[in-house]
């Protein structure tokens, strides 16, 4: 017996398994980042003084990173749309772009971190840097995870296109949902850490 | 009910309220448990297979449980509105004025309670972590005019009977919990925060000790005799006092009593009122024990004067 609804949707829920699965996973991710935001807010409210992010952090770099990440979200969704339009070559192109953007984000981040470390600024410096490094670090790990998944679907995983194109499209959609979520987290991280 | 629950004796003004509430809640619990217990036992016997061959598809047709659930909810509502909230508010909002109370600071550390009295001037001296040393555990700045006459004791909280006491709690290292079961006081001590707690002792320690006197077997006491002291003189056959009242029952003392033919002893806890640390704070958590001594006002003044003398 095959496991049902891996490709087709279940009539009464209107979902296929992986779609529901990823949303549940994202819900748990919301709570994970939620706890860290909660920590951030509580610590900041309780703090005697709290620096203004833009004075300590590099806003232009973060701005560039925001653009990169938003861009990667678009290419991601376009790659999925290409599959929907049965254009595999275009899919490869957009997916490749997404992965490149992911790397771009990490490279910029590495420069940012590097600059901080070279000034002797580490998480141990104070609570501001502690939250900055922890939150962006955890987000960075999520980016890395996304890159790994996307690379798999760009490379070896894409062979599934020849055998089960629908299932493959679903997989890319699911990977996309995750990637957009990572983008979404950054959209909130950027103002909270850098601008406020 | 209260005796039945085996609560420790109560020596504070608000303790009776708490005890009452514990009593009321336990009444509710007993009622529910006994009620359901009877039903449960009855059903288990009445509907056993050997007696009741064919099960009844419908089962019970009753709404009694719904009413019961509503009753429980109402009762809990009453407990919250009628007891819990007012009592809690009295504990945490209705602090007496500083001037009407004895105010002390307690600084907890692994594994001791440092008690800081403001001294005759009524002002606490400044403290600074950098001044902390073996003989200045709270880092008191003696050069501060307010700090000159401050009294600091370790593990000894001395207060007068019949006057509210405010204790400002803070910790040097980890979280502790300032618990005095006999005064129905408990408050976590959290580093980085100062949390006050208040109570009004209505019995002296001496009095409590007398009330707690019991006869213990010397052979098989069931208690740790080393925490006990004798409440009467014990004499040998020549009527010479071998163990006077107020002796601690160390093993050698017990041996002596047994050798003189005693099998029982009238004794009471040496330190009936204790500060117990109720929050795990490290390897010495179990022995982070402080002592509360509730004295008559005169004895309290005398004690203060004596402590002040040591400072000079």
């Amino acid at each position, binding site marked *: 017996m095959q496991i049902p609804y891996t490709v087709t949707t279940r009539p009464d829920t209107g979902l296929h398994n992986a779609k529901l699965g990823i949303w549940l996973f994202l819900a748990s991710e919301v709570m994970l980042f939620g706890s860290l935001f909660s920590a951030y807010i509580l610590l900041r409210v309780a703090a005697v003084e709290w620096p203004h992010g833009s004075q300590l952090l590099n806003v232009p770099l973060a701005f560039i990173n925001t653009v990169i990440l938003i861009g990667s979200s678009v290419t991601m969704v376009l790659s999925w749309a290409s599959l929907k339009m049965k254009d595999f070559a275009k899919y490869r192109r957009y997916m490749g772009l997404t992965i490149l953007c992911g790397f771009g984000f990490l490279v910029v981040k590495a420069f940012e971190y590097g600059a901080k470390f070279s000034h002797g600024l580490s998480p141990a410096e104070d609570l501001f840097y502690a939250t900055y490094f922890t939150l962006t670090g955890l987000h960075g790990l999520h980016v890395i995870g996304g890159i790994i998944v996307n690379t798999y679907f760009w490379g070896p995983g894409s062979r599934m296109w020849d055998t089960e194109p629908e299932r493959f499209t679903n997989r890319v959609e699911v990977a996309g949902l995750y990637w957009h979520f990572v983008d979404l987290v950054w959209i909130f991280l950027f103002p909270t850490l850098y601008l406020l | 009910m209260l005796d039945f629950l085996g609560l420790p004796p109560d020596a504070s003004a608000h303790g009776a309220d708490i005890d009452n509430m514990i009593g009321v809640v336990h009444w509710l619990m007993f009622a529910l448990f006994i009620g359901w217990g009877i039903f449960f036992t009855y059903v288990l016997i009445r509907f056993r297979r050997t007696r009741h*061959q064919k099960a009844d598809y419908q089962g019970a047709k009753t709404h009694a449980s719904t009413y019961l*659930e509503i009753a429980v909810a109402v009762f809990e509502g009453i407990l919250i509105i009628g007891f819990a909230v007012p009592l809690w508010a009295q504990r945490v909002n209705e602090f007496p004025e500083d001037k009407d109370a004895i105010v002390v600071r307690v600084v907890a550390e692994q594994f001791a309670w440092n008690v800081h009295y403001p001294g005759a001037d009524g002002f606490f001296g400044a403290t600074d972590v950098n001044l902390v040393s073996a003989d200045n555990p709270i880092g008191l700045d003696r050069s501060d005019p307010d700090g000159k006459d401050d009294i600091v004791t370790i593990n000894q909280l001395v207060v007068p009977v019949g006057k509210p006491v405010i204790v400002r709690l803070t910790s040097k290292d980890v979280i502790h919990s300032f618990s005095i079961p006999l005064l129905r006081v*408990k408050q976590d001590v959290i580093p980085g925060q100062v949390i006050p707690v208040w109570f009004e002792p209505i019995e002296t320690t001496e009095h409590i000790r007398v009330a707690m006197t019991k006869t213990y077997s010397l052979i098989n006491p069931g208690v740790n005799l080393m925490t006990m002291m004798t409440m009467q003189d014990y004499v040998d056959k020549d009527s010479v006092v071998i163990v006077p009242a107020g002796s601690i029952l160390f093993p050698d003392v017990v041996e002596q009593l047994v050798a003189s033919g005693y099998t029982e002893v009238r004794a009471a806890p040496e330190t009936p009122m204790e500060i117990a640390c109720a929050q795990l704070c490290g390897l010495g958590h179990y022995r982070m024990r402080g002592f509360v001594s509730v004295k008559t006002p005169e004895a309290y003044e005398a004690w203060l004067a004596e402590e002040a003398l040591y400072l000079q």
Partner: protein
Amino acid sequence: MQHVAAATPAAAGTHHEEHAGFWRTYVFSLDHKVIGIQYMMTALLFLFLGFTLMMLMRWQIAYPTKGIPGEWFALLPAVIGVAALAVGVYSKRRLTLLVGLLFGGIAWLVWWMVSDEVLFPEGIMLPELYNSFGAMHGTIMIFLGVVPLAVGGFGNYVVPLQVGAPDMAFPKLNMMSYWSYFVGGLVMLTSFFVPGGAANSGWTSYPPLADIATTGQTVWLFGMVFLITSSLLGSVNFIVTIVQLRAKGLTFMRLPFFVWAQFVTSFLLLLAFPPLEGAAILQLMDRLAGTSFFLPSGLVISGQVLDVAGGGSPLLWQHLFWFLAHPEVYVLILPAMGIVAEIIANNTRKPLWGYRSLVYASIFLGFMSFIVWAHHMFMTGMGTVISTFFQTTTMIISIPSVIILSALIISLWGGSIRYTVPMLFAIAFLPMFGIGGLTGLPLGLAPTDIHLHDTYYVIGHFHYVVAPGTIFALFAGIYYWYPKVTGRMMNETLGKIHFWGSLVCMNGIFFPMLIQGLAGVSRRLYDGGAQYAHAQNVLQWNEVMSISAWALALFQIPFILNFFWSMKKGRQVESDNPWGATTLEWQTPTPPPHGNFTSIPEVYRGPYEYSVPDAAKDYTPQNVP
């Protein structure tokens, strides 16, 4: 739909996996049933280990001044291990051999811990060791014992069968979930061997204490990250399985209550665990990167000013920890209630009373459990507003528990109760959970909690719910589903000895705790309160409790024997449905083959159609048209 033929364990399971080989079939299996059994065996071993730690601690509590004859405590696992090894060699069964090795491992671990002069100098258990055993007892029992057994074990094995699915929705995730749990467990075990020993700041790991604790705490945190990952993967899988893979006709209101319980539980795990993961990350940062999320400024640790930036908040940890840990306690109890409900319906031969109210109550319970957490923090200096909020939610949450319990008790009315071993455990669950739940009430009201917080009353409260409560339900589940898994029944007589012995001993351990707690005795005391004056009148109970605990261990021997012996020698089931049950897991071959069902099941009725008037048999399975 009766397939007695494939009844031997070896023959089945491999049915479709004939070429899969040993590793694929038993170790890195994707089959939910094998994974369920893996979870179950691992969790039982951890329960045993957690219990052994506690038996050692109970010696220290009862006889604080006497050295520990620690080797004796290694004897029990050693005997079990040697016996299993012997049987394994004799019957050439790899699984039994493995169990033998593992029990041997436990014996060795205990031996090592007690005989090593560093840990137990001159046979004395040092306070550090007591604390680390306490923390690890709590951690192991909850995160490595009960949850994996109840959710990972029973959930995995039973849920797909009960919903009529061929497997879990994501078999690979399922396998990863088990192995993540396994690694988490190994990491936790390793922590006993790092310098300074295992985590020793309580299972609650409150900073600053946990921030400045020995390396074991770091290992504990890493272990928790693995365990949390495992639970997250598992819970996603369960929810998707229940929502998506339900058989045709199996509407939500026809789901067995056990499935409902697992469903709600999965949501609790899914949404409550991540904050603890977040908190663990922050604590790891504090410990490894020198941050001070949980460290306020100006700490002086043993006379030295602590060199950190400061500004952090110790209470932040407590909020994040209890945000998980309160829902977690319902994770411990809901599957237990589910098991009990199944067994009660089956053994009273009648439908559950108030099925709908059971379902709604457990959903409500699950929802509320997210907003009561700070009742563990009443003594942290709460004002009136916030304490009123949490007292109220706590009282509210007790109502659905009362509803669930009432429905289960009333279900007995009108039944034709057969006192099988699973039923004995299931009905004992009710009053035991009753005591545990009722003692939660005085804890849930802030003023009474002043006297009771962090005393043995709390210990008594929750052990009544988790030990004679949940553990009993788990035993009930093992006796109940054993014939499905193995095709053989467990022995009734041994089961009854196990039951009555455990019932008496459990009460012998945990009732006196309530008495001690009312007297004001603090928990986590290395000497059991021997110095405290207010503890003196209840001190004599310590020995009673400890002896009961060791006796409890002896009463587990019939169970362990029964468990292994019956695999080979137990009475074979005469049909696929030996209990005459209605739910789908009994309408497959025994044990179920790979893919579970021989034909796609379809459901026509509710889960507990027992003694339907005018029906031929006293049970009508869900898939009978």
